């Protein structure tokens, strides 16, 4: 089941990239997708049933809008720090507790953290994620955990768990 889902996703991706429906192209795509599936199927997500629950796609759409807004804010934030003559930075690495269980959810959380204002995910060890922050505004763990990962975690929980 896992392998079949991965095969279908890869085949659709191939069709989008090449964008033609001649038989040669279909055969090439199918062979390439089978080879890739055989090699990488064991790294694919567990619990494929989640792909067929439409409520998750709705929350994914909501999450996408929040993500794009945060991404735009991040860019203006970086532009302000770079263009300011004195460069107001106060960098450091902080440690934040994770509340997500699944691997794919954690991956998406790390990606969102990398794209939000002033933070970049460095490593995940056990239940903690290490984050390089360009401007540490408070040293209290409660406050900055909420500030960094709080807005994404509740949506990601609805999508992936």
């Amino acid at each position, binding site marked *: 089941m896992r392998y079949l889902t991965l095969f279908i996703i890869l085949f659709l991706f191939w069709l989008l990239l090449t964008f033609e429906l001649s038989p040669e192209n279909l055969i090439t795509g199918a062979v390439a997708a089978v080879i890739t599936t055989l090699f990488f199927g064991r790294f694919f997500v567990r619990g494929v049933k989640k792909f067929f629950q439409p409520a998750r796609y709705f929350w994914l759409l909501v999450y996408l809008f929040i993500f794009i807004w945060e991404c735009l804010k991040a860019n203006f934030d970086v532009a302000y720090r770079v263009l300011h003559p004195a460069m107001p930075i106060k960098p450091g690495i902080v*440690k934040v507790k994770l509340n997500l269980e699944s691997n794919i959810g954690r991956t998406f959380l790390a990606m969102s953290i990398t794209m939000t204002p002033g933070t970049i995910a460095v490593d995940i060890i056990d239940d903690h994620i290490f984050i390089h922050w360009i401007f540490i505004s408070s040293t209290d763990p409660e406050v900055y955990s909420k500030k960094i990962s709080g807005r994404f975690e509740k949506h990601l929980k609805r999508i992936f768990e």
Partner: protein
Amino acid sequence: MSNIIGVILLCIGILFNLFGCLGLIRLPDVYNRLQSATKCVTLGTCSILISLLFFFGFSEIGIKALVAIPLLFFSTTVAAHALARGAYISGIGLDKRSIKDDYKGQVIEDQGDMEQ
């Protein structure tokens, strides 16, 4: 009309690329440079790819540009993460102005998950 919107999007994209490169030159150490460069250059290139949609419409080329955008997001974020981790493990320290370092002493070197 749509050509003009496309050119405006191109200008915005190149402006963001400029901020990213400026950060790459001005900021003090590897991690800060990675921050500014990754964010700004990714959004700038996304804006350039979206401008393609306004020049050619929803044809073959527009769909390809839309496929390229998530690919770009995934690849740059994962690359930034790998570079930051590799830089820390190889012993490149933080800048003098840093005020906090929780990662020190937690580093586990990865051995053997990539056979020689």
